């Protein structure tokens, strides 16, 4: 697109944070497919002087399996560059001595191997997809309603995401359901929680205004990054919908057709 006025906002750019699903690839049956030009775009970014990190709310697999899947698609990604909610929530649980009841996808359960889950005193909810049955929701609800001080951790608060066969409800919807049922507010771990983004910034060792976040989720990627003082770019892939560009409260610093287009413009502007 011609409207790359947004590149003015990337002066002094030192780092880029990429969302994964909907930016790098579209998920779906058999794991999904890379978005055209994204494999190449990541390669070019990593060859530049910019620092690159990946920030996902993916909780349908362990970080190891998830990264292996992306490498099979051709992405040059190292596990140490990837930030996801499960390891973050495990750290919080240990710090606060909490024992979780898990309402998560079976494939992410190994991330919680080191955590005591007996006699639970909190609930952790992730993108459980088909595991979001009435029975499983009810089991989580009963744990919460039975606690004196119910604590609910939600790994992300997304509304929906796109798979190859259509849009699917994300964890935020089920988080809202439990919040409403128990009259509580969940603690979100993952995007858009500032703590999550700050962890990534600390790892990069640079200031928020030197970083741009690129994502397909207006609220969680763009809005979340802007809240932390970063710039936020929305790609018109993945879950993007045209109405996002007229959103009443969140406006991206720029909108680009896809990751390849964003990387072209960034590298050109940075003179690389």
């Amino acid at each position, binding site marked *: 697109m011609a409207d790359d006025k947004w590149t003015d906002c990337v002066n002094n750019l030192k780092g880029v944070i990429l969302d994964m699903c909907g930016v790098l690839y579209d998920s779906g049956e058999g794991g999904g497919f890379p978005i055209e030009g994204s494999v190449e775009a990541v390669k070019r970014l990593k060859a530049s002087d910019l620092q690159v990190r990946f920030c996902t709310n993916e909780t349908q697999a362990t970080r190891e399996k998830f990264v292996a899947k992306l490498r099979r698609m051709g992405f040059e990604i190292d596990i140490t560059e990837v930030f996801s909610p499960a390891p973050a929530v495990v750290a919080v649980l240990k710090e606060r001595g909490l024992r979780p009841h898990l309402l998560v996808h079976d494939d992410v359960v190994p991330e919680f191997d080191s955590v005591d889950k007996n006699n639970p005193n909190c609930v952790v909810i992730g993108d459980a997809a088909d595991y*979001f049955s*009435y029975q499983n929701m009810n089991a989580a609800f009963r744990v919460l309603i039975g606690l004196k001080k119910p604590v609910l951790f939600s790994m992300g608060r997304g509304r929906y995401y796109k798979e190859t066969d*259509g*849009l699917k409800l994300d964890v935020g*919807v089920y988080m809202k359901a439990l919040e409403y049922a128990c009259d509580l507010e969940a603690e979100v771990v993952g995007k858009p929680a500032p703590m999550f983004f700050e962890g990534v910034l600390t790892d990069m060792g640079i200031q928020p205004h030197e970083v741009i976040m690129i994502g397909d989720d207006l609220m969680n990627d763009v809005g979340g990054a802007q809240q932390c003082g970063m710039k936020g770019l929305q790609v018109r892939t993945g879950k993007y919908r045209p109405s996002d560009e007229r959103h009443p409260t969140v406006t991206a610093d720029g909108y680009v057709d896809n990751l390849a287009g964003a990387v072209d413009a960034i590298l050109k502007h940075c003179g690389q």
Partner: protein
Amino acid sequence: MTSRRALKTVLIDLSGTLHIEDTAVPGAQEALARLRHAPVSVKFVTNTTKECKRTLLERLRRLRFNIEEHEIFTSLTAARNLLEQKMVRPLLLVEDSALEDFMGIETNNPNAVVIGLAPDHFNYQMLNKAFRLILEGAPLIAIHKARYYKRKDGLALGPGPFVNGLEYATDTQAIVVGKPEKTFFLEALRDLNCSPEEAVMIGDDARDDVGGAQNTGMLGILVKTGKYRAGDEGKINPSPHLTCDSFPEAVNYILQHLLEAK
């Protein structure tokens, strides 16, 4: 009371007011008979997501209440009326036992979503389907938004949490059709040629029965049977027009105080 017009209609809640499970409130059948001798219309209004009118009627007749099917107005009827008004085809997330009340409604190629209490339908696939319809513009119609209810094996999630989740997913507001919504009470009166100022509601739920009716402009009478807990009358503002022990007492009050001064 000076601004009120003469009483024309008495709305009566069912469960907790006329009966508790399979037992009638003592004296309720006889009180209803006395009320029917007065020059007022009577209608029975209830929030239900799983019992069709026929099931409700069969239970009431077993308990020897003199009631006609057309006098019963439920949240399912309200949902049906709304579907007919909007001329839409619903995806019905209600239990099979409630489907009878939607007989004759076209459901192929749906362009609306109706949510009751339907544990069997609250799975990921079905909610995704509902979500996509709403995103395409289908109205989300909720029978009611109760957070949870009591089952024999403990507490269980009601429809409210799932409605709330879909509202969040789609950035829309559900149309709630049951008590305590104003439209519910207005719909109940629609075929009676009666304004809310000419009606009184009797029920055991301070918020849903009495509060809802009074917000619509009716008088509300709270009975201390069913789910009533001490102090409930203080939980709504304005407080109930009257709080009394049970349905027969409410009828006595209506006959003595709301019908005489014409």
